[in-house]
């Protein structure tokens, strides 16, 4: 058969490598900044653009979509061409993909800083950028599938299956979770409400971890680990088995993010069960990765890239054991809402994603630039700093989590909470937050060593933008012949057909979990006493979303005595039916706010308290780490948008009376004037149209609509005040 000559596109790989390195530094830098803010609130700098609530989404999104995202694309564009003996399907698509993705990242950085956010974690970007992501993502998939279709190698290697599953998984998740109703260019409401929104969000959130941080990186592992070790993968059969089982199981585990919260019991049980099952396919990947190195451990001693990969695969194994354990309800009590989750995500992020990305870069950059790594010694130094930094980061946070949980649930012999004030438990773990900064700074230092090392390497070599190769053309095989080939072979030969099967497996998992929640009313018992937000409260809620308050405060009380004593009656599903989006949060750096509007409850504070607290939390408690929100007293709310917002809410099913959008502004001013009068009694002067007034109205709305089922708790409430 005649050999065909063709060129590999190395330039696009180089671009993605540079983007990975540059955005990686930015993401870690912002991480260090928010770590500083948590220990020393002065690092919020007293201005809105740099406050924690806006910087935290910037850190998480930059890490996931900018650093990890570009690393995926660099790794895929390099390995796909080599594995399939074909140039990328279209140079134009490659370029549009690259520049489109970088534009999205820049827009994300700008809009987060300005406070444009949907508040749905790792899906915070507003609707115009969501649409851009969908388009660029489909271009990536189109380019990838096009390349597979014009390949010169019959067999589709294991790594590529993972790439395909990642493409399909993220596409489905992103679209389903991003259904939102725009009210302006920069503001939209999630079409789902309350518990439904929470389920969709964590179905997305969990699977973003699966299909953005796990499956593509397993694909990278299946290419770059054997390459760097010079050994074939330990068991090709295992790779097939754990691929199918992992993509099928992952879709079902999302509700483990919502245990003990206002969610039907069966949904929680389903999530836990599938989370435990996930250990098996996850460990399949770890075992396959580690055993590939049998007989090659001498290379691990010398090569930094292999060291990084060993730590990565080990961290993957630990995290995928820890994750299922954290989804057990009794363990989840400790780990949820505490720093345990933060430690868990950083073992996975710094260890698994960081390790694979660093290992891949140290192997690929010299290869691509046709030279040697500038300094092996420096790379090894990076390895040791990075590995130690993970421990210095995570161990204090595990410690902090357990300590805080123990303090939160401690009772005195008389039956009162030992630490009724949340602040006391936080103050106790603040030294751990300082240690965490050390871990972050070390990780950043190692990262910068790599940047220096790789730039020196790049300067010494040169990329051959179009690298010549040759391979025989692929003869189409035609229909399946059961006598000579196997089903799996037949399926994987046709990339499109293979994608359809992956889609089917993913879709069944997703549909069964979400469709009932949306369409079955019996899931959400409505409570007659719960009323829609007044226009002023709605405005306050939008400011709450904008400032990212959910990054530190939850709005859902779990049915534990130590939570109901501290925060008030546990949350009911029916209380959240008007919440677009839901605001349950995932981490309590501050106390839960679900019942700040319940006047006789432990969390209620008067208007003057809220005013002073927003102006400077340290005036009321000198240990507080909450940023100042002094601009609430200066900035006006946008009255022009109020009718729009009311109409949008009506579209989403919130029962405002017909034509209420025209009356809403008057109602808003009336309610605002009451709060202004209340504040004036305490000697505070403010205009009714300031953001502060709306925030106070919202604080006084939350959880105030229903009476507790039992009044037995009220004795200890006295204690909490």
């Amino acid at each position, binding site marked *: 058969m005649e050999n*065909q*000559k*063709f*060129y*590999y596109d190395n330039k696009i790989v180089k671009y993605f490598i540079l983007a990975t390195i540059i955005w990686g530094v930015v993401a870690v830098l912002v991480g260090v900044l928010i770590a500083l803010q948590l220990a020393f609130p002065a690092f919020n700098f007293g201005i809105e653009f740099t406050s924690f609530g806006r910087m935290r989404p910037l850190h998480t999104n930059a890490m996931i979509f900018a650093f990890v995202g570009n690393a995926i694309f660099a790794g895929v564009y390099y390995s796909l061409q*080599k*594995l399939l*003996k074909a*140039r990328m399907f279209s140079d134009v698509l490659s370029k549009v993909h690259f520049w489109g993705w970088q534009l999205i990242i820049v827009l994300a950085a700008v809009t987060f800083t300005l406070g444009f956010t949907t508040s749905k974690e790792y899906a915070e970007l507003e609707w115009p950028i969501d649409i851009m992501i969908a388009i660029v993502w489909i271009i990536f998939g189109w380019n990838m599938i096009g390349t597979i279709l014009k390949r010169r*190698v019959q*067999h589709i*290697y*294991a790594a590529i299956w993972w790439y395909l599953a990642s493409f399909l998984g993220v596409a489905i998740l992103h679209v389903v979770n991003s259904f939102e109703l725009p009210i302006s260019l920069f503001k939209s409401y999630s079409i789902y409400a309350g518990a439904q929104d929470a389920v969709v969000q964590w179905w997305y959130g969990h699977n973003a971890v699966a299909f953005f941080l796990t499956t593509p990186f397993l694909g990278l592992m299946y*290419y770059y680990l*054997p*390459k760097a070790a*010079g*050994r*074939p*993968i330990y*068991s*090709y*059969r295992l790779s*097939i*088995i754990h691929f*199918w089982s992992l993509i*099928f199981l992952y879709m079902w585990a999302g509700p483990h993010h919502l245990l003990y919260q206002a969610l039907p019991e*069966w949904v929680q049980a*389903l999530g836990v069960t599938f989370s435990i099952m996930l250990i098996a396919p996850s460990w399949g990947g770890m075992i396959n990765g580690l055993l590939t190195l049998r007989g090659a451990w001498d290379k691990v001693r010398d090569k930094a890239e292999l060291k990084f990969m060993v730590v990565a695969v080990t961290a993957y194994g630990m995290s995928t054991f820890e994750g299922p354990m954290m989804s057990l309800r009794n363990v989840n009590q400790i780990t949820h809402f505490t720093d345990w989750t933060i430690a868990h995500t950083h073992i996975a992020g710094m260890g698994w994603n960081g390790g694979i990305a660093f290992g891949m870069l140290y192997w690929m950059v010299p*290869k691509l630039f046709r030279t040697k790594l500038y300094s092996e010694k420096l790379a090894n130094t990076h390895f040791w700093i990075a590995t130690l930094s993970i421990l210095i980061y995570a161990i204090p946070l595990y410690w902090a989590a357990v300590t805080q949980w123990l303090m939160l649930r401690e009772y005195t012999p008389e039956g009162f909470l030992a630490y009724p004030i949340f602040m006391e438990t936080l103050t106790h773990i603040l030294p751990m937050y300082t240690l965490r900064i050390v871990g972050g700074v070390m990780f950043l230092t190692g990262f910068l060593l790599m940047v220096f090392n790789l730039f020196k390497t790049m300067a010494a070599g040169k990329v*051959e933008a*179009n*690298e*010549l*190769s*040759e391979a025989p053309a692929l003869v189409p095989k035609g229909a399946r012949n059961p006598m000579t080939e*196997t*089903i*799996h*072979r037949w399926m994987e030969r046709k990339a499109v057909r293979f994608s359809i099967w992956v889609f089917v*497996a993913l879709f*069944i*998992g997703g549909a*069964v979990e979400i*469709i*009932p929640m949306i369409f*079955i009313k*019996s899931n959400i018992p409505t409570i007659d006493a719960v009323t829609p937000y007044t226009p002023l409260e709605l405005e306050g809620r939008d400011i709450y979303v904008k400032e990212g308050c959910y990054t530190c405060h939850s709005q859902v009380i779990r049915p534990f005595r130590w939570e109901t004593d501290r925060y008030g009656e546990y949350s009911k599903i029916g209380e959240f039916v008007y919440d677009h989006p839901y605001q349950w949060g995932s981490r309590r750096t501050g106390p839960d706010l679900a019942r700040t509007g319940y006047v006789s409850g432990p969390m209620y504070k008067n208007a003057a308290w809220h005013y002073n607290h927003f102006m400077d939390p340290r005036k009321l408690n000198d240990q507080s780490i909450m940023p100042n929100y002094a601009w609430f007293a200066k900035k006006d709310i946008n009255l022009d948008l109020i009718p729009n917002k009311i109409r949008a809410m009506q579209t989403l099913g919130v029962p405002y009376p017909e034509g209420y959008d025209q009356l809403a502004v008057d109602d808003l001013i009336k309610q605002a004037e009451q709060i202004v009068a209340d504040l004036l009694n305490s000697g505070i002067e403010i205009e009714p149209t300031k953001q502060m007034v709306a925030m106070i109205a919202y604080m006084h709305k939350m959880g105030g609509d229903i009476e507790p089922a039992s009044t037995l708790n009220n004795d200890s409430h006295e204690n909490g005040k």
Partner: protein
Amino acid sequence: MNIFYLLIGVSLFAALIFLGAFIWAVRDGQFDDNETPPRRMLFDDDNIEPEKQGDPIDK
């Protein structure tokens, strides 16, 4: 409410089909060649030197 049972039943059925297909595949010797592909990928860098360039078909 009953739709839950239906949906869970359907999905379990689907899962069993996947499992059945897999067991059948293993018993039937479907995954016979697990040796060539993982080895072949180790040798995909043997590219032609620029001097010996011929007439490439796509660029």
